């Protein structure tokens, strides 16, 4: 709690959310990685030439996982893109326990990475110093890394279509309504912060695993070199390296299959006693855990919104967004303020909508049909531009005219109304008889 107290004193943290419109978390991630690379650069420049020589001798082509690094970098880039989204300001979360815990984890992992990197560097230097050992150590590394185990011809790639929901970037015009379908805070921190923190932790774990793997690899090379140096011939035939897929499933080699046969025989079909693939089993447990957490959050603790609440939230947020937009929009016209539009492009826009929507009941030229004739001077519900606007906007449901206010913007309705007014006196064919009262 000392940390909390300390942070409380650093009051300015409660106020800084963005600098020049860029979220503070994005900036801090930039800072962290910037300094990391700066430090690397300085170290590289200041390293003495001797160490460089030794590093050059490292059997780096044997170290797997180099392909992982571009992927990690790209993943990092993608994850950090969320940090730069200038979303609505989130409540400051530095004093959130989740954040503190995560920061502690991040620091510990970073220290572990540093330690392991050191070990790796140290371990990789050992065979280098045995350069003078008899031939057969470094030069003749067993070439069977790439050799496939008989029968392990590679599993078919599992592909799956579909996948998790896509949260379109906030810039996409179609995403606004969908953005609000999910809760915008996780564990009390903003989306941005949460994803950033988890991203960093995941990245550190990945780096740790890669380093661990490489340490093991280098150590095994070292062991072989040592064995060769002491003149021992390899005793058992070198066990060919097992693919990651085989390890993930704990495959037993096919050659040892007979040990696993259960002795069942069903019309010639036999069964082996292989164990359950670990990733499958733990994945299964994971889904069960998911189920418990899901039901807990939605139905016990009510920390996640059910459909009605989601709806209410989305309506609320849409109203806020709409109000903000309308403050700036010139589209604020309603039945009391609407004026007859006369510009050709406005009338053309109104005509376009008329020809595709209104014609069904009012005829292509406004001559009427199911609905009344719009080209004469007789109106059922008033003939002023305001009245026509009102009729289109609210409709007359009990007369059969639908309300169009949810289908067209006020500007569009003004355009349609103006177009309708422009049809006065056009005398189309098959005109329906006048209805209503005269309005000139």
């Amino acid at each position, binding site marked *: 709690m000392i940390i909390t107290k300390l942070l409380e004193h650093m009051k300015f943290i409660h106020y800084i959310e963005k600098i020049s419109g860029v979220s503070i978390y994005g900036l801090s991630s930039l800072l962290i990685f910037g300094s990391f690379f700066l430090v690397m650069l300085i170290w590289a420049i200041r390293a003495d030439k001797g160490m460089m020589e030794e590093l050059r001798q490292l059997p780096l082509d044997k170290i797997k996982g180099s392909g992982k690094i571009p992927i990690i970098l790209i993943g990092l880039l993608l994850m950090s893109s969320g940090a730069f989204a200038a979303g609505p300001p989130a409540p400051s979360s530095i004093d959130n326990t989740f954040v503190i815990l995560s920061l502690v984890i991040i620091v510990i992992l970073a220290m572990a990475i540093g330690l392991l990197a050191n070990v790796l560097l140290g371990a990789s230097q050992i065979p280098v110093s045995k350069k003078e050992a008899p031939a057969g150590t470094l030069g003749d590394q067993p070439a069977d890394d790439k050799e496939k185990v008989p029968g392990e011809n590679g599993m078919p790639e599992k592909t799956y279509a579909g996948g998790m929901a896509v949260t379109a970037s906030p810039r996409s015009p179609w995403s606004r309504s969908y953005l609000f379908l999910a809760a915008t805070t996780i564990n009390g921190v903003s989306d941005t912060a949460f994803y950033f923190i988890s991203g960093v932790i995941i990245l550190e774990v990945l780096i740790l695993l890669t380093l661990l793997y490489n340490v093991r690899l280098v150590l095994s090379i070292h062991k072989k070199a040592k064995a060769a140096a002491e003149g021992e011939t390899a005793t058992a035939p070198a066990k060919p390296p097992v693919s990651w897929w085989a390890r993930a499933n704990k495959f037993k080699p096919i050659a040892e299959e007979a040990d696993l046969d259960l002795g069942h025989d069903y019309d010639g079909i036999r069964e082996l006693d*292989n164990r359950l693939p670990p990733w499958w089993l733990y994945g299964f447990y994971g889904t069960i855990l998911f189920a418990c957490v*899901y*039901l807990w959050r939605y139905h016990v603790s009510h920390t996640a919104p059910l459909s009605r609440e989601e709806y209410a939230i989305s309506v609320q947020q*849409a109203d806020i967004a709409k109000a903000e937009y309308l403050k700036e929009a010139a589209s604020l016209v309603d039945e009391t303020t609407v004026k007859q539009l006369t510009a050709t492009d406005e009338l053309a826009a109104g005509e376009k909508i008329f020809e595709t929507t209104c014609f069904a009941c009012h005829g292509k030229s406004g001559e009427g049909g199911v609905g009344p004739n719009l080209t004469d001077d007789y109106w059922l519900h008033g003939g002023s531009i305001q009245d026509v606007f009102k009729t289109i906007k609210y409709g007359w449901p009990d007369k059969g005219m639908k309300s169009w206010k*949810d289908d067209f913007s*006020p500007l569009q309705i003004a355009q349609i109304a103006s177009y309708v007014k422009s049809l006065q006196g056009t005398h189309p064919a098959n005109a329906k008889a006048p*209805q209503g009262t005269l309005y000139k």
Partner: protein
Amino acid sequence: MQIEKFYYDNRTVKWFGYAVMFWSIIGMLAGLWAAISMYYPAMNLGIPATTFGRMRPVHTNAVIFAFVGNGIFMGVYYSLQRLCKARMFSDTLSKIHFWGWQLIIVAGAITLWAGKTTGKEYAELEWPLDIAIAVIWIVFGINMFGTIIKRRESHLYVAIWFYIATWVTVAMLHIVNSIELPVSMWKSYPVYAGVQDALVQWWYGHNAVAFFLTTPYLGLMYYFLPKAADRPIYSYRLSIIHFWALIFIYIWAGPHHLLYTALPDWAQSLGVVFSVMLIAPSWGGMLNGLFTLRGAWDKVKEEPVLKFLVVAITCYGMATFEGPMLSLKNVNAISHFTDWTIAHVHIGALGWNGFLTFGVLYWLVPRMWNTSLYSKKLAGTHFWIGTLGIVLYAVPLYWAGFTQSMMWKSFTPEGQLRFQFLETVTHIIPMYVTRSIGGALYLTGALLMVYNLFKTIRKGSFVANEAAEAAPLPEKIAAHGRTYWHRWIERRPMQMLVFSLIVVAIGGMIELIPTFLVRSNIPTITSVKPYTPLELHGRDIYIREGCYLCHSQMVRPFRDEVARYGEYSKAGEFVYDHPFQWGSKRTGPDLARVGGKYPDSWHYNHMMDPSSMSPGSIMPSYIWLFDHELDTSRTESMIHAMRKLGVPYPDGYAIEQANKDLAAQEKSIRSSLQADKVRTGSNKEIVALIAYLQRLGKDLKASETTSPQGNHKTLAGDGVNSSQLGPGQQKSAPKEQTAMKDADGRDVMGN
């Protein structure tokens, strides 16, 4: 021990095999027809039987019950005998089973084309056929269990566990979902209504997928894959775990068809979480299958049979990952009611069911005719065409589904909906075209297969009864080798049956019973009243024509849906809906609140020729509704049945008042049509349909407004003239105006 000699019956397998081939073509043709009519409405031909609404159930029933059904029986009859080392229990029962099933299919196709449908997906066949299905299913069960009991193999192989679970669960699902009250020879109403009907229906519907399309085929996979690849099953342990987990978890997943609907939230959540937990058991099957091929992958390159099986199992894995993903509410919010669901279905159907059936056929036929496949090359071609067909089917529909959903949800900055519904349909037409090409390719592949197998049969000689020999079961079965606790139940088929039934019954009971007994799950809405007799007729017409296949009646609590359709649907609105008609797809817009939105004449014109009111519409025209007479003699039995099912029509209403009210309402609609220059003869079906459509959503609007003016019909024979809220007011001085013309250019007077 004395070795017994006996013979396996191949004849029944052969007959089922012929049936599979035959019905595969029919079923796919029906599907292709339906697919083409979605962008080329002229395919509807203007006759009832070929409209999409009737063709689609023919397609689904043909491919599920005829194609996959016969495939199941073919595979079970072949494998069960050999796994039990015993001939089928009774040759007579085998014959009854075969012919009975085919008769059901033929009767089903005819009745569906004739519009005799219950209106519930994959359970459309009416009550006489439901009874027939139950009878034949029992015949199958007796034959199957009789064979198991007289087996000479002490332990049951995993395939047989799947067959047993299939049999008992399908029986349970079919019986419970088909509880219906007959009104006439070919019409019945389910005893369930509204939300409860929806839950029972999708408890059934999803598990039709699980226990008709999945578990029996997993059993087939467990037999035919190791046989074809000559490899042992990878993990016996895995088969035990995934079998029990699968049959337990699958049952609960039904509500994932009803996410964001009026179903109670707790049921929806159960559907979600159990669907997610289902990934592992399903993938257990996939892994066991694919890992069995370790050491045989080089064979896969050579053998078309193995190619089909591998792709089948892979598609199974894809579909059983996608399914749980689609069960997550946030994904479902996008995918429900769109073509994404269709794409998902067809990955499983074309990939898993189709390809597995083809693989089994290619393996079985040469074997049973004691020859080799006529052309491996042709089989390979079939494989590639079929795979391409699957891809061209699914991918455009993913695009279409996602795009359409995003368009539906699009708002302008002012808060208006950006797209009209029709725009979202016309936008994805090219995807429908591509999809039908994919389906046509798949069908072509199947035709190649039929040709190939036909030629194989011709050059072979059929082995009707295959000789075999084995020792009978000893009195006491000695355990040998390493034993598992599970071996105990593998020796006891009856206990296996009972345990399986208990395991599958749990999920259903926990979900169904509270929904029926706990009143708060369906809060009462007092303004909701039963349908009028005329509206009931209209509803039956709606079901008959299959309208629910393109139009949903379930507004979800989303901003865009409320803006487009009206207030979101509440559970209490549907209490009198026998059956519910929430729909699962929006090829056309939702109709839950269409009542009062358009004038009667709009509906009249729209049903006559949809493109007159909605240019570019792909909806077929329903011109026969304007000629057909309404059969008012049925009114009494309809109302009577509804009363029996709990709908509160007054005593004696059916006999005394119902048809009077019907006539009065019919008259008022006709006069409102007349006011709009539309003349129709009396007592036509179109008027009933209009009455029904104009009622949808009205009751809820009534509870929101306090207007006393004729909100909707009052009943109880108090003489109140039934006038619909909505257009019905006399317009001033109706003048001459060209009335709607029918296809021959005549004034529609109706006659």
